[in-house]
């Protein structure tokens, strides 16, 4: 069931960031992972990623993983509410694609 408090659609950057942190990942890892997932099409700019992580942490959709206080490389992991957002977005994207396929006959 879609939660009405969840704001979708997500930007493609946020969608791919959330997908990436379904396992613990640090900033540069996310950039690499998104590049791979999108076959080199989407290269996250550092300012965009930093802003997205800051906002996602504030919303509680992701959290820092592990307790390495002094580690410079912070790892991030998706939270339950983040997963819920991701599921809602996936359903929306499926609807878009399915309707597209129906009409375009592919």
């Amino acid at each position, binding site marked *: 069931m879609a939660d009405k408090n969840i704001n979708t659609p997500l*930007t493609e*950057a946020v969608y791919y960031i959330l997908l990436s942190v379904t396992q613990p990942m*640090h*900033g*540069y890892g996310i*950039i690499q992972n998104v590049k791979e997932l999108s076959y080199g099409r*989407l*290269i*996250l*700019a*550092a*300012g*965009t*990623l*930093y*802003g997205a992580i800051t906002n996602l942490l504030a919303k509680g959709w992701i959290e820092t993983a592990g307790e390495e206080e002094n580690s*410079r*490389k912070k790892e991030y992991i998706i939270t339950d509410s983040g997963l819920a957002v991701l599921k809602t977005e996936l359903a929306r994207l499926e609807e878009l694609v399915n309707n597209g396929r129906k009409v375009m006959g592919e």
Partner: protein
Amino acid sequence: MRTTEWHFWTIDKYKEEEKWLNEKSAQGKALVYASGIKYVFEDCEKGEYQYKIMFTDNLKSEQPRKDFESFLEESGIETVGNYLRWGYYRKKNDGTPFEMFNSKSEELAHINKIKNFALILLAVISIVVVSEIFSALSDPHILPVLIFNCCVFAFVFKVNRGIAKLAKETRQDIALFE
């Protein structure tokens, strides 16, 4: 070899400043220090670095600034220096464009931060200018005071117009492309 150059860029011209730094790098001069009007360059291979300038809230306090800079470092971006709330960044030229943001709307949010800053500056300058003129009313030498203050006001006003124009152009891009 180190060379020093003096240049005055107003805040509405930060993209031109960025272009200038990239042209310097293309000529084999890499920026290593920037503070207001003083720019220090070191020899580098032609086009070795790409430069980016950013106005940011993160620079206001020490810890968020360090967090941001180490985050950038992880993705291969080096902080050349900070001046007031401006950050100068560079990355080795790997053939891909050096962008700080993926979308025009983030670009606009960045420009709006500069715009707000310029507006506060304009408000402060306006108050100073008006009070200066009022206090000089009884002064027989009011004319130079008047001219000087009007020039200051006109200058800050022009900077504001410049940054507002930049914001408008970016908004138009968003309407067309996003």
